[in-house]
């Protein structure tokens, strides 16, 4: 079940990627990329190298993260529920509903199907397409920015998951919230359960990654004007879907938006930085010297 669904996701996203690459990136840029792909890969390699420590962190987070988290983390589910119950107060001062309950009150099968596919396919597409698109540019900054911003999202997210233990609305508001993705589109669970832990709720990494992708789309609006509205629509849909499907609290989403923005800032800050071994050594020497001079 896991493999067939994963293959299905990969297949469908690939189709989207091909279509988007042809229409948004365009044949001219693709031809250019094909001619200079060696240099471009060489320029990107150090950033792809950044993936290695990330994968190690991911492995650790998956294997011991949940257990470690229950030992050192703080349980905040109750607080998230309380805050979420106050957010719509300006709209409904009399009887304020939970944000997720309010969103689900508008549910229809078609809307559920839309948000379920956006949550799975749309999200993957939204994150993968920029990598292709920015590799096809003649200058490396957008690609570097993206790689660093994605990495920052993930690292900060993992630390938060360690520190904050929370369950999503579908695990607490049983009588009101339906875990729509889980009851109606069962097949996706085999993929989501394999890549995520159910206490990894605060903040919403789906939201932060989507916000990052959309903000980066704006930063390359001159090159890819068509990508801006598409990325924005997808990002907003992904954000709404996390709440609509009962997976995240609105509070997770608010902090997710903040994290997505912060990650882009970090991406800009370090886009000129080359992650080479010598660079790391230099930096370490710099720190050591700084400490020494302070000790004196």
């Amino acid at each position: 079940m896991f493999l067939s669904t994963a293959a299905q996701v990969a297949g469908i996203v690939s189709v989207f990627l091909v279509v988007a690459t042809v229409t948004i990136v365009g044949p001219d840029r693709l031809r250019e990329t094909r001619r200079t792909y060696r240099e471009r890969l060489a320029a990107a390699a150090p950033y792809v190298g950044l993936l290695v420590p990330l994968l190690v962190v991911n492995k650790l987070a998956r294997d011991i993260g949940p257990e470690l988290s229950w030992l050192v983390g703080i349980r905040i589910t109750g607080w998230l529920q309380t805050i979420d119950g106050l957010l719509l107060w300006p709209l409904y001062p009399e009887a304020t509903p939970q944000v997720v309950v309010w969103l689900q009150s508008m549910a229809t099968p078609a809307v559920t199907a839309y948000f379920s596919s956006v949550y799975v396919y749309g999200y993957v597409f939204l994150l993968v397409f920029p990598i292709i698109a920015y590799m096809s540019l003649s200058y490396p900054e957008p690609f570097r920015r993206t790689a660093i911003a994605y990495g920052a999202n993930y690292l900060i997210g993992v630390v938060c998951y360690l520190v904050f233990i929370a369950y999503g609305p579908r695990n607490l508001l049983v009588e009101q919230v339906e875990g729509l993705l889980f009851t109606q589109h069962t097949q996706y669970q085999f993929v989501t359960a394999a890549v995520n832990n159910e206490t990894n709720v605060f903040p919403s990494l789906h939201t932060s990654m989507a916000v990052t992708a959309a903000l980066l789309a704006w930063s390359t609006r001159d090159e890819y004007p068509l990508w801006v509205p598409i990325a924005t629509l997808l990002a907003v849909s992904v954000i709404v879907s996390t709440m609509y499907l009962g997976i995240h609290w609105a509070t997770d989403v608010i902090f997710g938006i903040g994290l997505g923005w912060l990650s882009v800032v970090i991406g800009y800050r370090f886009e000129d930085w080359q992650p080479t071994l010598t660079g790391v050594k230099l930096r370490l020497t710099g720190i050591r010297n700084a400490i020494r001079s302070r000790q004196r």
Partner: protein
Amino acid sequence: MAAESVTRRRFLATTAGALVTTSGCVGGVQNLAGRSRTAQLSLRISTVPASEDPYAVWIANHLADNLEASGVDTIVDPMSYDVFLREVLINHEFDIYIGRYPRLRDPDELRSMLYSAYSEEQGWQNPFGFSDPGTDELLDEQRAVSGDDRIDITNEIQQQILNEQPFVVLGVADRISAVRTDRFSGWPDGGLDNPTDYLLLDRAGEETTLELLLQNGRITENRNPLAVEYRDRGTLVGLLYEPLVRTPDGVDEPLPWLARDIAWEESEPTAATVRLRETPWHDGRSVTADDVAFTYEFLADTSLGEYDTAVPTPWRRSHVSLVESVTVEANDRLRIEFTTPNRSLAYRGLSVPILPEHIWRERSDAADLAGVDLSSRTTSALVDPNEAAVGSGFLQFDAAVPKESVSLTVFPEHFLWNGDANGIPARFGGTQPFDRVEFTVVPSQDAAVEVLAEGDADAPADRLQASIVPRIIDTEGISMTRRVPSSFYHVGCNCRRAPLTDPRFRQVLAQHLDRSAIVDEAFDGHGTPSEVPLRGKWVPKELEWNGTASRPFLGSDGDVAVERTQDAFRSAGYQYDGDQLVRRSGQ
């Protein structure tokens, strides 16, 4: 919606309260400042997330909403099942919890739940910290008598529970399951709930591997029969470890299991000579009388005398306390003295899993594992994951992938398959119904039904929730089955913490729970409300469920009537500031 509006009201009330406080007259400041201030009472309800038990979460929300309405600041705190059990049963870190008692068929189980002397121990023995000399006397007395006298005393005990409410019984949820019958038949009602249920299956085709689905991965990582925080009802470890006797559902007399026969003595309290069957451990060594004697010594004190205070088993405490002494008379024979004259009760003492001495003896040393308060006395036996799980059960451990799957194979040298099954009805023995059992973890119950529908599994190993029933009924090829189990839902109070120390507070708390609404809405009607933990002949006439509890719900249709609950709290001696229940310490 009630909870949300109350929360906001509380916020506004707090703000208003702060303004009033600052406008106090200066002359009185000294008098006032010397007194401790009052603050709203806040309580935390510990429970598990809906993915593990939607019923418990529903009940937690129901109680939280109603307590909020009565002016108590209440927060629902979900945590994963093992963390929940560790906090409640081992660390006693809770105010109120919502849970399910594993199995309760005999009144003697109430003794381990409530006996004062057990309140400092870890496990299912008195997690409430309840202490009442009168109840203790009754709990001891029910062991000394039999027949109608025992029923009378049990009635008194249950009446006492209702008066004191250390825990509030809510009712029983049916055990629901879904099974495929094309590969295996003979499924008992409600699916595979007890180890012996597995023996009732028959092959319907050529398939020799039974495929079952798990809701969580606990058994894939921990197979220790004493690790209370990893066991729900102990069914799966029960497949790996055999007791001296077993009492399957629908059997009157306990069946001699590891015991070949039991010769009772006409003494008071009673004693018996037990002869063992010839059967090996999964590693090939023989099961001996020494192993049995060791098991009883070990379960009574897993430190084997190392610590000043004994560290008893966190589970089946009452069973072990029924055994006074064990004397080994021969390699396959031992004499057991009991603490009770009641033979049917003595049988309970014989139903604990027997452990191999050559593996468990060295687990009596002090454990140094994180996650449990290290200052408390914990032995390796209680925290060892016991991955290899060498037992003498009819299934043996084969392989496991943590969080994903575990496979067990039939143990061919087991006495059931070797003609040494005297005293065991034929339906449990004879031919092996399968060669292997594969357990696979699935992400949810909906996913479980989907896997069943595709024919990739035969049944779930765990119970299913009521909300999945329509989906089962709509699915071709699988059928729904259910039974009434011996486990009941209850609200546990930590009687060590004020104001839960006060029985009057607990009584009013109990009146915030609408049992009819819980069964109708949380269990979707698949259950029975009850205010007493026992069933059948043990339920006194006046406590049989008739739609209203003897301490009735103070409201209707699941929602409390605020003026009634506030009156009840007030007449129990509690005070209100506006619509908040306040206490000096805020605790």
